[in-house]
């Protein structure tokens, strides 16, 4: 028997209903206004955007209030709420399970819808803007509906419940829970904006470069948030899961990587369309793929079809998301087919030695990469559906295929920035690659001096050097021409992003190839050695609070500082969570985990030690990518898209 939900439940559902009705009416107003050019109706569009945003804020705030006040009349609070959860994690508990995460999606999507409405407020009479708003409203209506029915966070819970287990212990163990999901959602949901404009362009038939240029910044925003969200997830994995890795090719990680790959392909290929009028169908297809993959990713994560460190429990929303996925694909492909004639590109690639050819090659590689990741992720599901066999595709499949693709992309990253559009001579290429090539050689020699070996890592370091040289050459030319403004704008910011990617590639190459690990049985006050480091167990201590019992091994590393890997038992859920302790430096991390079984009164402990070279450069590279994205979003003193790459920039143009 279920109890009444009380004020929170009723209020929350009312907000969701208002939001859904607002989105439906908004879509109706946008489509009708666009078709009939009815200014009176069009003027209503921003009001509906405000309404759905207000409704989403209301619903989210109601859920936060219920969580903070521990309103156990709600099933969701019973599932993830607890009196013993600290305030910070209790706040984040709202998005720690399926229903709350969809609610957050609704909030972010409504926020984007309002932001777009504000952005096009003076151009709402333009059909492309109205149609795009209509698409935003349709997607919003879908998510309000999902939140109202199959993923209802305001459902009534069992009567008489006075406390709950709290969120999954893995979500109570690190402050990143506050940032990783919201930032990732800003990326996921942000893709809706360029997708909406792509659909609007197809409907209106205005498939030239106008809409593309207009939504460029939105695409970059979404891509930047997705990049940063994924990187934060890796950091979380490293800091919380205790396996010393940053990427496991877990299906849910893959689900976030897939739209990132197609999105990255898009932000490159869009340059070709702007500049040369080519790849129109391809660019629209990439946007459709990116948006569809966010829906597919949500289906994979939240339908219960897979086991994963991230997977939410089984739910009834799978069919909803599959249906949405199908609708998006059918409508988009139908529209592309309908506008086939207009999408025909007037331009052709004049030479394989040109920037557009390099971008095309880059897109082919990204497409293959996306296919490989998608195949590896859904292959077990397909086999299970067809043959009722339970199989797994392990990390080696992804590692073996992504390594050559990554190396090929690094090669293109070295060459593409120095290539002019249209055609390059070998002399031009030779001149422009002179210093980058020396950088590559220097990187190779340096890595050999430091003892690196193996084809893949050495190629990574050498190509990383060439790519970094090419990016630095571009930045240096731009800053010499334009001063500090040579750092902003898409091309220049893009080079900073490239430098971040190169750092990440080198860090992954080093840490994947040269990591060492060993389990050590440490006895108190007896020194053990591994990989040139000393480890001495000083004590094993127990820390208790009202939600957990934590056993920590105090280990003196290299006779300098004590580190405390721990195992925490969350008593309400009965789950053990390991907490690694890491000594970070620019050259290598010393990563310690405590291995079970462990007893506080014992004078010994089993410690697993990982030596992870250069891992900190992964986070530095990520920060550089974030900075580069911000610089790319700001308007530089850039050329018109049709001007030659070597053309001087006029003073005063922005």
């Amino acid at each position, binding site marked *: 028997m279920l109890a009444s939900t009380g004020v929170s439940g009723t209020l929350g559902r009312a907000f969701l209903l208002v939001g859904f009705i607002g989105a439906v009416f908004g879509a109706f107003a946008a489509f009708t206004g666009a078709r009939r050019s009815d200014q009176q109706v069009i003027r209503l569009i921003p009001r509906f955007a405000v309404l759905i945003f207000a409704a989403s804020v209301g619903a989210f705030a109601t859920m936060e209030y219920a969580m903070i006040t521990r309103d156990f009349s709600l099933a969701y609070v019973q599932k993830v709420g607890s009196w013993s959860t600290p305030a910070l994690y209790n706040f984040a508990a709202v998005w720690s399970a399926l229903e709350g995460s969809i609610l957050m999606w609704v909030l972010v999507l409504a926020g984007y819808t309002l932001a777009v409405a504000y952005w096009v407020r003076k151009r709402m009479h333009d059909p492309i803007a109205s149609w795009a708003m209509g698409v935003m409203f349709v997607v919003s209506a879908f998510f309000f509906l999902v939140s109202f029915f199959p993923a209802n966070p305001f459902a009534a819970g069992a009567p008489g419940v006075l406390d709950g287990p709290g969120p999954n212990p893995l979500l109570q163990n690190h402050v990143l829970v506050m940032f990783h999901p919201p930032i990732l959602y800003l990326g996921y949901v942000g893709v809706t904006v360029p997708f909406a404009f792509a659909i609007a362009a197809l409907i209106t*038939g205005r498939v*030239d470069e106008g809409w593309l240029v207009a939504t460029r910044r939105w695409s970059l925003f979404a891509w930047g948030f997705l990049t940063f969200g994924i990187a934060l997830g890796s950091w979380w994995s490293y800091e919380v899961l*205790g*396996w010393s*890795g940053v990427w*496991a090719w*877990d*299906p849910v*990680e*893959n689900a976030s990587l897939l739209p990132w790959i197609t999105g990255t392909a898009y932000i490159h290929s869009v340059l070709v369309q702007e500049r040369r*009028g080519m790849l129109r169908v391809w660019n629209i297809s990439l946007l459709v793929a990116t948006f569809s993959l966010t829906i597919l990713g949500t289906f994979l994560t939240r339908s219960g079809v*897979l*086991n*994963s*460190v991230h997977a939410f429990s089984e739910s009834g929303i799978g069919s909803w998301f599959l249906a949405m996925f199908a609708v998006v694909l059918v409508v988009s492909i139908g529209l592309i087919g309908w506008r086939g*004639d*207009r999408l*025909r590109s*007037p*331009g052709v690639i*004049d*030479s394989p030695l040109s920037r557009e050819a390099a971008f095309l090659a880059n897109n082919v590689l990204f497409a*293959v990469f996306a*296919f*490989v990741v998608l*195949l*590896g992720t859904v*292959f*077990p*599901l397909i086999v299970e559906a067809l043959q009722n066999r*339970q*199989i*797994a*595709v*392990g*990390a080696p*499949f*992804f590692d*073996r295929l992504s390594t050559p693709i990554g190396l090929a992309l690094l090669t293109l990253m070295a060459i593409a920035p120095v290539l*002019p*559009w*249209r*055609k390059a*001579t070998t*002399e*031009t290429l030779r001149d422009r690659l002179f210093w980058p090539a020396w950088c590559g050689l220097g990187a190779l020699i340096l890595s050999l001096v430091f003892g690196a070996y193996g084809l893949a890592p050495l190629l990574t370091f050498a190509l990383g050097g060439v790519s970094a040289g090419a990016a630095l050459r571009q930045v240096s030319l731009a800053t010499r021409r334009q001063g500090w403004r040579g750092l902003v704008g898409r091309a220049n910011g893009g080079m900073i992003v490239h430098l971040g990617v190169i750092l990440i590639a080198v860090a992954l190459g080093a840490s994947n190839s040269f990591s060492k690990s*060993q*389990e050590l*049985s440490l006895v108190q006050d007896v020194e053990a050695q591994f990989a040139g480091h000393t480890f001495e167990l000083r004590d094993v201590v127990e820390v208790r609070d009202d939600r957990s019992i934590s056993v920590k091994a105090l280990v003196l590393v290299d006779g300098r500082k004590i580190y405390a890997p721990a195992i925490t038992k969350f008593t309400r859920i009965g789950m053990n969570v*390991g907490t690694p302790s890491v000594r970070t430096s620019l050259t290598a991390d010393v990563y310690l*985990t405590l*291995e*079970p*079984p462990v007893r506080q009164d014992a004078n010994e402990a089993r410690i*697993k030690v990982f030596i992870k070279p250069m891992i900190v450069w992964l986070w530095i590279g990520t920060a550089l990518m974030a900075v580069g994205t911000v610089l790319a979003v700001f308007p530089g003193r850039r050329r018109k898209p049709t001007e*030659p*790459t*070597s*053309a*001087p920039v006029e003073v005063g143009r922005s």
Partner: protein
Amino acid sequence: MSGSSTNLEALKQEREFLLRSLRDLEQEHKFGDLDDQDFEALHKDYVSRAATIIRQIESSGSNSSFAEHAPESSPRRRGRTLLVAFMVLVVAGLAGWFVAQQSGQRLAGESIAGSIEDSTASILSRARATNFVDPQAAIELYTTVLSVDPDNVEALTYRAWLLALIARGAGDEVKKLAFESASRDLQRAISIDASYADAHCFLGIARFRLADDAQGAKQALTICAQNNPPAEVKGFVDSIVAEVDAALGG
């Protein structure tokens, strides 16, 4: 929109594009992005294409059935499309074959894709569950444990035992090699923890089954019995003790 007006629109777009490209080309040549030779070749190509398109647009004005003049896909274009389709099929086929090769049985609690490197405790637990279902996979899991913990007694013992089991039906040469390897691992396990009964038990069985050494087997099995082996291991031992005694008696 009719087909002819769509084609006319497309041709006008292409004309605009080519004329704009000619202007860009001159700019790029002026700023040194293109050398003289490439400029000449590209310029000639663009002029020729623009002239063709302009002629087609003009002829459309005097011809009501413009659709007949619409550019058709050339054999070269069709060939390129076929080549791309073929390449896509090849890549998809190769990736499909590779993923099928790389897939394996999914155990309880495992994710469908990817893997987080487990602690030795959880790898051992998976290996135990796999021991007699898929000995090959279990051996790999024990080897993984030994790569980070070379002194892990359980991994040393059970890897040796599974190796001995697999080799039992093989030829003499293989049996001999398997026994040497298993015996080495078991002796090492015993040297690390002499009270670990399983290692003594399996050493006894291996000596008898693979090396016909009843004397050595008896010695190991005696120590095994003194150390209270677990029930499932005791089951193996009980079934062989009589045979060993008979061999010694004979």
